[in-house]
């Protein structure tokens, strides 16, 4: 019952956050120098032509009025149309979201699997050979920005070892997820970036748990092998989950660089173009989608942590 109440609160807060986000994004895009008239008219238009475009895009009306109209429509599920070409924003987001997901989900799965596995292995034997080797590798990964990792992968796989396609070109009429070979490089680039951070979190958390009196007690009571590992990992998970969910949510934001370099036409890629073109409804729709996805991941992380925490015999090492 308490969980339900907590969940309701969180969802309400998330909704409020999204509305605030939409207002801030609208205001910011509005405040930017230039508008969709400038970007669509190009350099050789006359003033009269510019004015005509402004009226036809509805940009001659006050910003407040346009925002209220937009939010009213958005509440009913209509995200409006692209200022530049009149395509339905909801439709664009649908296309882009599935493409982004095709890269993000495998990356997330790889991160979680490797981070939990290797993190547990290293955390159970702090200071061991495994731990030291993994620490060095993950330190290097954490120290490398997404763009360095992506550029390195591109160089390796275009110049020296061309076994994977460097550009995500999906054959017409098909979806990106149908082509694991195309997904591979961008997903690996994202996974490498996130894996370092996630694994170190898990490691620290497992190490802390293994260090508690509770784990000591279990060992003294003869709990060994897989049962022991599972017990420690399960107890370490809640405290790592929050960080892990932040790492996974961070993939969404970091994907702009990776999507551009590998030509994955996803959300981040589309967003950078929409900002450049001052396509306000599209920027709004895309950033709301990103925001909602981030909130969902964070919420899911907290929810999992709370559920795990409730079923535990003993609280984990840290709050």
């Amino acid at each position: 019952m308490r969980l339900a109440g907590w969940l309701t609160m969180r969802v309400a807060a998330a909704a409020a956050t999204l509305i605030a986000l939409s207002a801030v994004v609208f205001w910011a895009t509005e405040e930017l120098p230039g508008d969709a008239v400038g970007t669509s008219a190009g350099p050789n238009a006359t003033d009269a032509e510019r004015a005509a475009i402004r009226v036809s895009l509805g940009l001659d009306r006050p910003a407040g009025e346009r925002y209220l109209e937009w939010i009213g429509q958005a509440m009913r599920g209509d995200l409006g149309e692209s200022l530049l070409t009149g395509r339905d924003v909801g439709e664009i987001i649908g296309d882009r979201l599935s493409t982004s997901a095709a890269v993000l989900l495998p990356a997330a799965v790889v991160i979680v699997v490797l981070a939990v596995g290797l993190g547990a292995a290293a955390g159970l034997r702090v200071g061991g050979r495994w731990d030291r080797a993994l620490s060095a590798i993950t330190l290097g990964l954490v120290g490398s920005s997404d763009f360095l990792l992506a550029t390195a992968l591109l160089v390796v796989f275009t110049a020296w070892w061309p076994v994977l396609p460097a550009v995500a070109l999906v054959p017409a009429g098909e979806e990106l997820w149908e082509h694991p070979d195309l997904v591979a490089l961008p997903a690996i680039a994202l996974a490498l970036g996130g894996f370092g951070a996630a694994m170190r979190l898990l490691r620290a958390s497992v190490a802390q748990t293994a260090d508690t009196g509770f784990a000591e007690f279990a060992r003294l009571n003869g709990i060994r092998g897989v049962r022991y590992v599972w017990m420690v990992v399960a107890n370490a998970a809640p405290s790592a989950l929050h960080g892990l969910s932040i790492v996974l949510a961070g993939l969404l934001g970091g994907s702009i660089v990776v999507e551009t370099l590998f030509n994955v036409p996803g959300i981040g890629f589309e967003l950078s173009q929409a900002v450049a073109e001052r396509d306000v409804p599209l920027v709004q729709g895309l950033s709301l989608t990103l925001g909602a996805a981030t909130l969902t991941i964070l919420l899911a992380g907290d929810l999992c942590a709370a559920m795990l925490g409730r079923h535990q015999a003993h609280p984990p090492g840290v709050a």
Partner: protein
Amino acid sequence: MKSTTARNLAAAVTVGALLAAAGCSEGDPAGSSKSAERTLRAAFAGGGSSETLNYLAGPTALDFVRAKLVHAPLCELDPKAPDGVSYGVVETITASEDLKTYTLRVRDGVKFTDGKLLTSADVLYSLRAPMLLKGLPFTMLISRNFDMDAASAPDASTVILPAKSPIADGREVICQTTLAIPDKTTEFTTSTPSSGPFTIESFEPGQSTLLKRNDSYYGQAPALEKIELRSIPDGSARVNALRQGQVDFISAVGPAEAKTLETADGLKVTNSELPYASYLQYTMNIKAKPFDDPRVREAFRLAVDRKRIVQNVYYGRAFVGNDIPALGFPSYNTALAQRGHDPERAKQLLTEAGAAGIKVELTAGPEMPGMVETATLIIEDLKAIGVQATLRELPAGQLFADYPAYLSWPFKAGYTPPAYFEINHAPGTFPDVDALVLTARSAVTGQERLTASHQAQKLLWEKGNQIAPVFVPTINAASDRVDGVRELQFPDLSRVTLRN
């Protein structure tokens, strides 16, 4: 005991990771090679998913290339042809003696893909379409020059266009961008009837367009069965796609990338020749100090080392400019001396103008290959004559976003696609030049027009406000199986052949 557990676990995890990696790496690098051999796969810098088939609203190179493959042009600019244009679905264009009326004769027997004959009504509608369908300003050239409300189609093969004022270059105006679409077309879908060498089989905004040969095309039948146009906005991603054989042809290659592609096996790099090179210009606002003084403008133009720009920015793939537009077009004034690199004279001029050591800020953005890099070299050249020059670099897509602000900046980068000087001259800076351009467009004899045009260019060369160090061609690269690309401003792929 604990250690064995950890080792087992680690081993299990490693195996899992390897399996996961193997799962990801299935398939061959040229994943899409299963497409038919006679399909050309070509990549361009296209738009995002807001892309539309309405070519009147599409600003990218991809929009333009696709539109020309799908919709037959009325006629095309062709500086080498006697009329300055080559004809398409319009057979001839004749001007009246007084240069006030133009008569277009429609070619017989041209059919749309739905089997209907193309008539004068379609041509008239095509000419009006930019106004009716909210075309982008660059499509508005016709309505700026002709009174489209008074235009008429007296019979099935004749269209009459009254000019707003007498002009001699009406043909070039009509032929700059107009494509033939059926009368009353209001939206563009994959099934909209068309008249070009290809038809659209499928279209995914921001990703790909699959074109199929149009067997009822009136002109020379294309050798290719299909063309797949891909949108790859990032320049190095395009190059990677070509290197790995994911596409056969790419357009808009950066100069540095062209240099490294030249040595790659099985690939060739080409660029468009004059006059198909964009006019890259750095404009000094004569309403702002210190550019109100013609000596300062001349000093800045003399300071620029054009050869170094051609070598270091464009790796030789650019044409040295002489500070006037339309290099390579028939009316270009070749009698003017090429302005050289003379920092000493530049310093002297600045001192005379009392502008030694002034501060200027040049605004540029990555809107065409080498625009920012050229700007950085210009800044260095200006520093060498004692000017405290700085560069303000805007992110991609921002340079023209706030156009009134752009106009007000004292010193800024810009570019003009390859086009006739006279038609595309923007008046308002030098009244004497404007008057000469008007004569150059409307005088009765060709000789009078040419003289006036040359005179206008001479004035611009002497006191003008633009530094035009280079003309920039479009660089394309292709697998060497690809032949027959016509390298215009944007490549024309309609006559391409693909060897096995």
